[in-house]
């Protein structure tokens, strides 16, 4: 994407376009990677609510895979995930391992 010059900017850095966070892929920030374990998932959707970005995808009303383009690896989903009978459905793994 060609970067804009200073004459082309909106005053005060105001964003006048809705949903522009789609263009900002924060996945490259990730040091830890959440891993989904479907057999422990109870479809409570806590991860979807708590995720600060849009990295939890939903398909046909069900929890689907992570969208790693937007997952910055904060670990909130893993912390909040109740899992099944004490077995977490999300675990964090170090990137590159």
């Amino acid at each position, binding site marked *: 994407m060609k*970067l*804009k*010059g*200073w*004459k082309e*900017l*909106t*005053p*005060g*850095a*105001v*964003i*006048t376009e*809705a949903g*522009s966070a789609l263009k900002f892929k924060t996945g490259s920030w990730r040091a830890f990677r959440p891993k989904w374990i479907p057999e422990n998932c109870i479809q409570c959707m806590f991860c979807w609510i708590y995720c600060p970005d849009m990295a939890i995808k939903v398909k046909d009303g069900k929890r689907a895979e992570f969208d790693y383009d937007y997952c910055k690896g904060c670990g909130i989903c893993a912390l909040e995930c109740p899992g099944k009978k004490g077995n977490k459905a999300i675990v964090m793994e170090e990137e590159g391992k």
Partner: protein
Amino acid sequence: MGQKIVAVTGNEAVANALRQVNPDVSAAYPITPATDIMQRFTSFVSNGLVKTEMILVESEHSAMSACIGASAAGGRVMTATASQGLALMWELLFIASGSRLPIVMALVNRALSAPLNIHGDHSDGMGARDCGWIQLWSENAQEAYDNTIQAFRIAEHMDIRLPVMTCMDGFIISHSIERIEYLDDYAVKNFVGEYKQLNPLLDIEHPVSYGPLILPDYYMEFRRAHAEVMSKVPGVVLDVAKDFEKISGRKYGLFETYRLDDAEVGLVILNSAAGTSKDVIDEFRNRGIKAGLLKPRLYRPFPYEEVGEALKHLKAVCVLDRADAFGASYGPLFMDIASSIYHYKNKPILINKIYGLGGRDYLPEHAELVLNELAEIAKTGKVKTFKEYIGVRE
């Protein structure tokens, strides 16, 4: 024109200007010597004389935050503060200017603590001079009233959209009764006109976000754009002044010059002390000494070129600062004046005096002392001290 002559304090005059403008929202927290402005204004709100939504908050940090929110939402917004209050607003000042929100704030100049002092001094305004706001400084209650009204037009100009601080001296002006002329309500209403919104948050048909994270790939472009907008301010200030003259008969420029055109020695001084200095300049003129004065009005952005042109022909100039700049060699106003004449080959000899800190009186004899020293420098070309404190006990 229908102007009414009244005897009021500076604070009363500013409060009345704000009543006449009738802003949509105000958020404020009391602080001496600015309290009186908002105290009067809140009574206008309570008595139904304005339609302003008045938000009483728990600190100046919150006051400026609420002003920012209300301004981004699309309202005409104003507030008032002084000294520590302005200091507490510090981080928000940059957010208001960086987000290009046309908030108008009356700043009643007061010294900064410690030691605690509530009196007139420019340390507060000088500390905030480079935060991206426009600053208009006022010599007396009339100028404070006139600047307040003009500030809305300048701030809200579509080429500008920047916050404006209007400054006047604490107590010396804010609490002294002077004769001033009020415009009638209708004239002020007409002059400021309907508020024009730009990207208001409350326009849900066109959703916008304020305050995004701007990383190194764009931050510098936004700062460069801010500098560009600042460069357009003087032109707008002059246009607004021209319109204001039509309704008031009072003339305003970027700065005021007093007997400066043919002067050989001159003073550069802000706000109320300029009045005292003008009297002394008249006495010196009567004695055959060609003395003059320059009083900045638009202090940020500083009109370097115009000020340089106005001063370059003098032989010796003293810049009087009512604020010190610890660790810098000279006071803040001196540094701006020095920059404005720096590139001329022939330029006046410049000296700096720090005066009037914490409300210490600036007396005619101080101006006399300085003008005598300047006359001597003009004659001999020799300077004893470049920076000195006046009116201080050894």
